[in-house]
Structure formats: structure tokens, C-alpha cells
């Protein structure tokens, strides 16, 4: 591992995203706080894992940092530039360097567009000056880079397996030489025997291209394997953030402990022992408190604050 430079690729400050709730008969307008006051940064070449139960706000954060679904408040700075201050044209140019890989590659692909055309579209949109032959060459080399046979350029999405489709999506994501990729459950829809292939590919691309990842996943085993640091999200707030080894070996927040204690172990004796000794500590109800540093780079939410609204 190279020592990461000090400045972050992406810096998220006090990000909140809420959605208005309105009763049918026009009652009191309330808001649902999907994400509240979340701050983190990701350094060049670093992978930050984002874990938490469904509905905890993981994907909301993923869509907010790429400005696919801009936040209600807070700032997102990419390589030091506040994305909210950019003109639409400048945002479009910057976005080429921030990419997303989604959970379901079949839904992400266009069924009527060949795999080659889909990857080439990135160049057609962002590099219109590129000559056709140059473009074709670039796409073929991207195919080779992600482990796809360049002979498959003319094939359509339904002719590929799930793992190959995710490779196509990754090829398009890296086409414009991004420095930051949001990977939102990139292996969740893939077969077990294919998951390691895609994780190895993501790791190789990071090593070769110096990419930074926000890796959103519910697979706590893969998160420990792939991520340098991990943020645990609960009820829309980060309740713990630490180096991944530290988080897995010394979890402090009750929710983190509960989450890690729930991971099944592929070893019969160890798994039976885990089931027998299951920890059932529940985090106190209410809104998680602000983060406090309990060790170098290890942040844990303080005791819950009184509930403001019923979430």
C-alpha cells in the first residue's frame, strides 16, 4: 500500500437529505430525514466502505455525492471544488471523473445497444472530438482491461452472464479516467462464484489507476477485505467510522457490534458457537449523537439524542 496523499478526492461536509412527507388531506407538512449531517472524506487510492441496514441511507449518500440526487444541505467537494457552485456545463465535465457502478448491471445497460456501443457512448458524449477509429481502439482496450474478450463488442446485454454485464458497466465507468467511483452494491446481484472475480477486478483497477471508491455494501466480509476505512450508518447518521481492521476488531457503537455479530461464519463449529452466543444488545432508540474521536481516526457516535420527530 502506498501512503495516501493528504488531500481528499471527495470531501463531504454536513450532508443532509430529506424528503417532504405530506398527508393526503393536506395536513401538517413533515419531512423524512433520509440522511442527516453526514461528513467524511476519501483520499486518493482509498476505499471507504459504507455499511448499514436497508433504509439507513447508504444509497442516498451514494447518489448525493455524485449529484445524481443533490443533497438538501451540506457541501460536496470533489478534488477541492464545491460541486454545488459549478455551472451545469462545468458540472457535466466534472462528473465524467465521478462514476457509479450499480447493483443490477442488467438494469443499467441498454438492451438495444451493443456492449461496445454502450461503452463508446461515454466517449461520444464527453469526447466528441475523438475519431471513430480511435474510439473503437479505446473501447477494445477497455474490454481487455476488464477481462472481456474484445470479440464480444457487438454482442447485446442478454448475451452476457451477470458477471460479464457488471464488467461492461465497469468498463464504461473507467472509460473517462475517473478518479472516484461510487460502487453501490456492485456484487449483490451476482452469483457467489462470480463475486470474487468482480472484487478482484475492482482491486486491480484501484492498484493500477489509483482510483478511490465509495463501496456501499451489506456484505460485511467483502467490506473488511476491500476497504481501508469503514463508516457504519444507522438511521441516516454515521455512528462509527474507523480503519477497517480497527472497526472489525474493536467495534464500539452498539449498532456496529450488533451488525458484526450477525455475520454468519462459513465454519460449522465457529458458526454454531456464534449462534449459541448471539449478542442481542440493541442500540438505544432515538437519534444517534455526534461523533467523538475515541482513538486515532476512530469516531463513534455519542449517546442518542432525544428524538425530535418520529422517524
Amino acid at each position, binding site marked *: 500500500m502506498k501512503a495516501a496523499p493528504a488531500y481528499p478526492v471527495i470531501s463531504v461536509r454536513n450532508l443532509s437529505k430529506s424528503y417532504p412527507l405530506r398527508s393526503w388531506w393536506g395536513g401538517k407538512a413533515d419531512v423524512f430525514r433520509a440522511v442527516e449531517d453526514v461528513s467524511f472524506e476519501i483520499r486518493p487510492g482509498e476505499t471507504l466502505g459504507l455499511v448499514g*441496514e*436497508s433504509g439507513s441511507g447508504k444509497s442516498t449518500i451514494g447518489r448525493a455525492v455524485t449529484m445524481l440526487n443533490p443533497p438538501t444541505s451540506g457541501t460536496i467537494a470533489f478534488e477541492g471544488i464545491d460541486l454545488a457552485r459549478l455551472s451545469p456545463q462545468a458540472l457535466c465535465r466534472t462528473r465524467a471523473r465521478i462514476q457509479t457502478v450499480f447493483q443490477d448491471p442488467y438494469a443499467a445497460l441498454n438492451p438495444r445497444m451493443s456492449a461496445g456501443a454502450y461503452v463508446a457512448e461515454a466517449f461520444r458524449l464527453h469526447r466528441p472530438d475523438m475519431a471513430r477509429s480511435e474510439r473503437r481502439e479505446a473501447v477494445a482496450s477497455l474490454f481487455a482491461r476488464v477481462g472481456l474478450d474484445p470479440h464480444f463488442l457487438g454482442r447485446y446485454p442478454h448475451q452476457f*452472464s*451477470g*458477471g*460479464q454485464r457488471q464488467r461492461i458497466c465497469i468498463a464504461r465507468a473507467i472509460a473517462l479516467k475517473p478518479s472516484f467511483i461510487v460502487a453501490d452494491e456492485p456484487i449483490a446481484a451476482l*452469483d*457467489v*462464484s*462470480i*463475486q*470474487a*472475480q468482480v*472484487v*478482484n477486478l475492482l*482491486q486491480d483497477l484501484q492498484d493500477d489507476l489509483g482510483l478511490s471508491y465509495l463501496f456501499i455494501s*451489506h456484505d*460485511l*466480509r*467483502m467490506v*473488511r*477485505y476491500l476497504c*481501508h476505512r469503514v463508516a457504519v450508518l444507522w438511521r441516516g447518521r454515521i455512528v462509527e467510522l474507523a480503519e*477497517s*481492521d480497527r472497526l*472489525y*476488531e474493536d467495534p464500539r457503537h452498539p449498532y456496529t457490534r*450488533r*451488525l458484526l*455479530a*450477525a*455475520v*454468519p*461464519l*462459513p*465454519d*460449522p*463449529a*465457529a*458458526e*454454531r458457537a*456464534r*449462534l449459541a452466543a*448471539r449478542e442481542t444488545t440493541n442500540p438505544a432508540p432515538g437519534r444517534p449523537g455526534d461523533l467523538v474521536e475515541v482513538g486515532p481516526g476512530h469516531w463513534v457516535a455519542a449517546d442518542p439524542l432525544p428524538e425530535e420527530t418520529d422517524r
Partner: protein
Amino acid sequence: MTGSTTRPPLLDVSDLAVSFDTEGGAVHAVNGVSYTLAEGETLGIVGESGSGKSVHVLAMLGLIPRPPGRVTRGKVWFGGRDLLALPERDLRRVRGGEIGFVFQDPMSSLNPGMSVAAQIVEPLRIHLGLDQRAARARARDLLDLVRIPNTKGRLDQYPHEFSGGQRQRVMIAIGLACRPKLLIADEATTALDVTVQAEIVALVQELRREIGMAIIWITHDLGVVAGISDTVQVMYAGRILERGPVDALFRDPRNAYTLGLLRSLPDLSRGRAGRKRLQQIDGAPPDMRTPPPGDPFAPRNAYATPRCRAEMPPLSQAPGAAPGHLVAAWYDLPALLTREAAQQGHTP
């Protein structure tokens, strides 16, 4: 639970084969699956999509749509009858009666327009012939059994008023309503959060101790299977590639696919500094319209021999392995691993 017994097995699946007719030709989803399940035994079935793990139980229960599905051969003995030969009327009495089942997505299995009470009461009245009062009382007991708090008030609520984990608990309550001898859970915790999964798994373990039913637990998660199974069965491309007592199978895998699955999982106890590249299984599962002629895993298997590519090995006792540890392989995996370790100059 898998010890020798003179009693006939609870379930005896014999040479079951299922295919689906599609425009691109017949998809051979299940290709000759045979196994037995003892009373009170928990069988974990592991496999990925297309392995036939779900289709074969749906076929057993007469739940595959026909057409396009077809059971092309086989017998499924349960309680002295061949389920595949039963008329639909009789099969309906078995489903939800002696055999309960829980599927992956509770929201699509539950009827959104029917209260939870009505959905639990229905099988009780049909299968056990209880009157409305008795069935309601039993429904309340069942929700207690699956640990849904404040049962009385919740009985008349609708599925959308329950959380995902609670809906799956309701499904389990329905599955257990008629005290089945066999509960089939097909990816029952896959859509749930890991913390909720842990609760459901613990619940099923407790219920098994209380009720003593046999369980077929179908999943792709080797971790879940490790903790709850007596016997584990690994399926791939519509076949059983390996089957054995849980400890033996995890400690001493005999099929290269099982070994590949176990090795591809990152070690949760290993820190980032000491980690190695994940051992991936290259390639992808075969197209079941044109399954490879021999061992279906051979094209992805570095240990495959020419015979593997030509001829399907039978599922039989693995030499030198625990009794009842069966494998379908022409190669001798332990010998190959020992040789590999010797070549690399260290022991595995």
C-alpha cells in the same frame, strides 16, 4: 440426526429431472437429483442461480408452471406416496399441511389485501378443519411462537403494516401453522438485513427444537448453512456435486466447486495487511439449454480430467471420507491438493 435408522426416510427424492420449454430450446434445470431426508434432519442446500436448488423443490410441491415446465422423470416419496403422481387435490392437502414452506420475498408471498389473521387462519381451517374461533386462537399462538410482540393487536393488521423481518416471521408462522413434518425455506433470509437474518435463523433453530420438524434450507450463503445444517448438499447446473455431514463437507471438501466456493470467501478474521488476493472461480455457470456433456463444472475446473469433460461422474461415497460424504468427481481432490502443496513446498 443422519445416523443409521431402519425407519424409512421422511422424504426420498429419486432421479428427479425438470426442464422448461423455451423458444431457444429446452432448459434442463434439474438433471437427475436423488437424496433422502430423515425425520427431524436439517438439510442445507447450497447453489447459485441456475443450480436447480429452487426449481427441484417447486417441482416436488407441484408448483412449477406447466407449461413451460415439465417434470421429465423421477419420484418424490413423502409419507408413503409419490408426490409427483398425486392429483392436484391431494397435493394441495400436503402443501401447507405436512409440508410448510417459506420463500424469499414475503411481500409477494403474502396477500396484501388480506389481514395477517385471515392468512394464518386459512390453512388452519382447510388443513386442520378448525372452526373460526379455534383457528384464531391458534393464529395468535403462532404469532407468539414466531416472537411478534403485541400479538392481539397485530392479528388484524395487513402485511404492509409489518417490517420486512416481521413479514418473514408471519410467513414462517403460516409455514408452521399445521405443524408440518417438513419445512422448506427457499432463500428465506436473502432479502433481509444481516441483523434480521440472524434473528430469523435463531428463531428457526429454536422452533426446530420445540417442534422437531425436518428442514430443507436453500441458500447461496455458506455461512448460514454451516450453523444450522446436519447435512449439506452442493448443487450446480441441476445436479448434486457433493453432499455430506456438515463438518465433514466444510473440513474436507471433495468437489472442486465446493472447494472453490469456500476459498473465494474472504477471511473475516484476517486484517487488511495480511490479506491475499481472493481465489476466484473463473468463467460462468453453463447455459442450461446446452449443458456440457460431462461434469458441468469441468469447463471452470483447473483439476478437470478428459473424462470429466466427457462423462458425468455418479454421486457416490468419497473414498476415505466420513460415512455419507458423497461426491460426484472423477478426480481425487485431496490427492491433488497434497501434490499441489508439495510442489509449492509447504503443507496446506
